[in-house]
């Protein structure tokens, strides 16, 4: 896919190269400024001894101009070609790389607009190929019209129609597109409340640790803080003296503000990411638009969906909120490998979207089975000798009283409870078309995979499992995993035979996408 050669010569002369939009230079320059902080600090540190204060602004200006110059050079040497069969990107100042991306290999095209780029009417176009090595190809930045033109072009090329979309054609809305899921402001807000997060304190703490040399005081010196409080007329003695009731109020105030900050963080983060969430179904697949400051627009072709994952949490489940993700070879974003089709939806909405991806809702719990309890019991029994050995060691070597070491047996309660919860939530099953797997007692997850999408099936047995006649069944899914555990060997063999019959039957017939 990647070739380092002079491709310009063998390109047909009719194909002309395009440059990125020049304004994009400013955008990437400004957004790259934080990276320049360290070179600048280093440069300032270098001229510090010269004792000439005029040097410092000169050094800063030099770093900025140098950076801008190299970005301009890179821009000059960056070209993309929209060819007959592929998109080619040539880049590099000294090391030239030419990458060719065949249209058939492009999994999806996403357009991302960060705030600054959005102000300038620019967007970042990303071509996902599902190839292993991360960054596939990115055009940052082109005008929004160009981005839409490229996407429309790739879609039509993929469909086998060589329609030439001209640059001045308006970003046309597809006629067959209709929204199947959207979140209004209220929904996003409620979702934010469920996304309670105290991560801001971790971030602040980390920053304080990183940059504490910049602060005029020692951040971790509690005596200093107490001293500061005393200067303002608050002393430890005073706090001790205000009485239990007032102390309680203070404590409530502290906890309350923590809780408030947690909710506020959740709401703000969710709002930034999910604002204006819209999922539309087009003839080419699902199209998702979302974001408040950074707008993203990602398309997922329907036939690439390999499995659906429905998730819910212990609290949101009570109000019926679930999320739906699609498993595929393409990566949704850096944090999320699966395509988020609906982050916060009711079950009926979830099943409606899944239906559009030809994944059906489970038709009742009767098809699902529990795992063999002895699987979890054995795991617990493996821990017991460890705890007993620990107790024996304490009694023998540390002369601990036997009665008190028995308390250590409580150590078994927690794993025991976890195993019990895991066993209680776990279900597996299959019907004529799909596989079902339910797991997790805190983050509850239901995976549904069409059997025809299974890539390989493995029956595995560890040394303990084989003694109990248990096995696990591992299904290879493109972009995800599905593993049924704690089933009797005979069941595993039967399930595998049933699924293999489906996979083999489909392989040699034309019923590839519709069931």
């Amino acid at each position: 896919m990647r070739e380092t050669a002079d491709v310009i010569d063998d390109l047909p002369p009719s194909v002309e190269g395009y440059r990125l939009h020049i304004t994009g230079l400013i955008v990437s320059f400004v957004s790259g400024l934080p990276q320049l902080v360290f070179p600048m600090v280093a440069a300032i540190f270098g001229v510090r001894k010269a004792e000439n204060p005029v040097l410092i602004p000169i050094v800063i200006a030099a770093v900025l101009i140098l950076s801008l110059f190299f970005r301009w050079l890179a821009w000059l040497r960056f070209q993309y070609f929209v060819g007959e069969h592929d998109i080619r990107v040539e880049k590099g100042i000294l090391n030239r790389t030419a990458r060719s991306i065949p249209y058939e290999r492009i999994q999806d095209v996403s357009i991302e607009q960060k705030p600054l780029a959005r102000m300038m009417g620019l967007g970042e176009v990303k071509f996902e190929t599902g190839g292993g090595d991360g960054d596939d190809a990115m055009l940052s930045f082109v005008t929004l019209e160009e981005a839409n033109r490229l996407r429309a072009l790739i879609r039509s090329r993929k469909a086998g129609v060589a329609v030439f979309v001209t640059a001045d054609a308006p970003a046309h809305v597809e006629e067959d597109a209709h929204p199947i899921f959207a979140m209004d402001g209220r929904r996003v807000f409620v979702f934010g409340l469920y996304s309670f997060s105290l991560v801001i304190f971790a971030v602040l703490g980390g920053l304080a640790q990183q940059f504490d040399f910049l602060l005029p005081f020692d951040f971790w010196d509690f005596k200093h803080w107490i001293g500061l409080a005393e200067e303002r007329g608050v002393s430890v003695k005073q706090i001790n003296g205000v009485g239990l009731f007032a102390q309680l109020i203070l404590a409530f105030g502290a906890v309350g503000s923590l809780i408030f900050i947690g909710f506020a963080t959740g709401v703000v983060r969710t709002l930034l990411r999910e604002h204006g969430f819209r999922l539309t179904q087009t003839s080419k697949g699902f199209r998702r638009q979302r974001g408040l400051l950074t707008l993203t627009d990602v398309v997922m072709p329907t036939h690439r969906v390999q499995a659906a994952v429905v998730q819910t949490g212990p609290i949101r489940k009570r109000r019926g909120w679930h999320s739906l993700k699609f498993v595929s070879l393409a990566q949704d974003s850096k944090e999320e490998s699966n395509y988020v089709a609906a982050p916060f939806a009711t079950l009926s909405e979830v099943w409606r979207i899944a239906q559009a991806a030809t994944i059906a809702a489970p038709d009742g719990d009767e098809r699902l089975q529990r795992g063999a309890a002895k699987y979890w019991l054995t795991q617990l029994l493996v821990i017991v000798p460890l705890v007993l050995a620990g107790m024996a060691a304490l009694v023998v070597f540390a002369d601990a009283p036997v009665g008190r070491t028995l308390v250590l047996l409580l150590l078994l309660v927690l794993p025991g409870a976890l195993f019990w919860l895991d066993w209680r939530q776990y279900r597996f099953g299959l019907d004529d078309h799909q596989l079902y797997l339910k797991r997790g007692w805190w983050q509850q997850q239901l995976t549904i995979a069409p059997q025809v999408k299974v890539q390989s099936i493995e029956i595995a047995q560890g040394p303990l499992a084989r003694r109990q006649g248990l096995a696990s069944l591992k299904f290879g899914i493109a972009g995800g995993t599905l593993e049924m555990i704690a089933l009797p060997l005979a069941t595993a063999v039967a399930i595998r035979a049933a699924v293999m019959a489906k996979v083999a039957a489909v392989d040699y017939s034309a019923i590839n996408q519709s069931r």
Partner: protein
Amino acid sequence: MTDDAPPELTPLDPAFITTSRIATALGLLPFVVGAGVLEFAQLLPPGTFLVPVLLAYAFVAYTVPARKYRHWGYDMGTDRLRVVRGYMFYSDTIVPFGRIQHIDVDQGPIDRRYGLATLTVHTAGNHNSTVALPGLAHADALAMREAIRAAIRQDT
């Protein structure tokens, strides 16, 4: 172990025992050398290092490959490849030909001497994205590759 299996499994080429003995023996040689050095340093009574290490070495390099060989097996169906291996950690994998993305036939230096090869099939699944079948006669591996390729071409 595979009482469920209607089609009988094909064993690997017996030369696999030899190649795997050689490979293990070479791979573990540093431990023997290390034990020899410790022995030479005469820290403990003679034989404390060398004797147990040599015994373990002989077991792992001589007995284990023969056992491993007994637990490997494969079945080349008309539309699927089945690979069975392991006793302690038993695994029985089926890959339908229609799901195979590409096929490798590898030969290491030891393999080449004994005319063996490893057949590796790649699938798109995250789990079992590669399924390797070592210890095939080179000609068999090539024939299997051609058979799988023909099956894939017919499919598309």
